[in-house]
């Protein structure tokens, strides 16, 4: 059995990230933040392409507190509120990450993110960001909504509530959230190598259809 590497966001240093390789299993315990389509577009439009207002700068400060050295999770959760008005995640599987490809390079750079969790992997530009700034892409188990929700032990709060439940930034504490490194900080993508291998296998198998 492969050794499991423990990550404790938002206090992940560059050295730890650089030591990770594709195929490594990690277990995350600490504070992470969710963000998907609207969140990514917002970050790029507001802080990279424009001059943000003071109010927006405050949001950025809050995000930096949790994401500098931290982990962003591509997830649109289903959230319930209990009798005391406390939020609780009931379904929290990863969403397809490639949709954030146009934004992720800038987002990683802007916030100093060390890890991005999602499913399906991302493209060349994100891989470049991982290499340049020292970050990794972490693959969660697609569809495991209930299982992952049970790893969310506490919902701290949310930013940009007006984006709606699936799209807002949720600040959450997770315990023992397992993922697999599939894009490391050395320019390697497991998705790319599996794709290439499967193409080769496809050619060989095609030759057996005679």
């Amino acid at each position, binding site marked *: 059995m492969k050794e499991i590497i423990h990550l404790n966001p938002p206090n992940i240093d560059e050295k730890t990230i650089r030591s990770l390789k594709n195929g490594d299993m990690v277990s995350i315990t600490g504070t992470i933040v969710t963000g998907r389509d609207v969140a990514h577009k917002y970050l790029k439009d507001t802080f990279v392409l424009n001059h943000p207002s003071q109010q927006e700068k405050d949001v950025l400060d809050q995000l930096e507190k949790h994401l500098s050295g931290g982990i962003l999770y591509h997830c649109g959760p289903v959230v*319930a509120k209990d009798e005391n008005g406390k939020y609780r995640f009931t379904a929290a599987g990863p969403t397809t990450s490639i949709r954030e490809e146009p934004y992720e390079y800038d987002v990683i750079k802007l916030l100093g993110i060390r890890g991005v969790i999602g499913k399906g*992997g991302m493209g060349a530009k994100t891989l470049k960001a991982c290499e340049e700034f020292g970050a990794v892409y972490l*693959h969660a188990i*697609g*569809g495991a909504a209930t299982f992952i929700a049970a790893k969310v032990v506490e919902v701290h709060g949310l930013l940009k509530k007006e984006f709606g439940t699936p799209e807002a930034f949720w600040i959450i504490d997770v315990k023992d959230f397992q993922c697999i490194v599939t894009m490391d900080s050395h320019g390697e993508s497991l998705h790319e190598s599996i794709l290439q291998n*499967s193409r080769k296998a496809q050619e060989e198998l095609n030759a057996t*259809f005679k």
Partner: protein
Amino acid sequence: MNSKDKINGIMPGNRVDLFVEFIKEASTNLPPDVRKIIEKQKSREEEGSRAQQALGIILENIEMACTRETPICQDTGTVIFHIHYPGKESTLVLRRELTDAVQKATEKGYLRPNSMDSITGENPGDNTGIGLPVFFFDETDHDELEIKIMLKGGGCENVGAQYALPHTALNAGRDVNGVKKVILDAIVQAQGKGCAPGVLGIGIGGDRVTGALLAKEQIFRDLNDKSPDLLLAQMEEELLEKGNKLGIGPMGFGGLTTLIGVKIAKMHRIPASFFVSISYMCWATRRKSLKIHDNKFEIS
């Protein structure tokens, strides 16, 4: 056998309540054949590999969803009903009652509010809309009413494909080998998008509409059955074996389990067209059947 693999009973006063229960079962309790194959494949994957770990998490998730009565996957997808009804049933009434049940099941959290206006993006919040939920009706000549439900996730629906033979780039001609080549290609193309391991439903022939429908219908089949057509049964077996040699594996992490089923059917075509339609269903193969007869019901 899990005690919840089958639910039997006497018809309740209000049929809609039973339909809500039926939808809940589809969303929260994965069929036993699917569960068993994932279990079997987990034991075949290399000990301690990421493929085995992924299947382990999938199985734990399936178990938890069943006990907690929460959706197996948060994407409860498109709600599709295939209904085989005796002549005495009204399709209008069935449509109304099942739509009512879908709304109630959404309210109870068994279904995520997925329906949205294609242009404005507006979401009515109850999984209804133009063309939703999806209904197919077939009249039968016996007394039993059978309703089949499928919850078809978006990630896997997006990687469905339809190839027209001949396909030059793939060097796939209008013959059995051509069909096999495009199917293999569809599996390669699907990686990293629909959550593997998956089930392939394949329709050979027909036109663009009927072929696609035939493909999707195959996903209702039990994973352990075989096509009654000998040649198709042989193709199912061969493609399952060869598809799993592509090395894509659970979640695309690499490994032995890329597919958990290949189900093929054919229909006649016209000389000018030769379509191969492929519907991809993720590991969360959520489908159930409800049979009603003589004031008794069975959900399986």
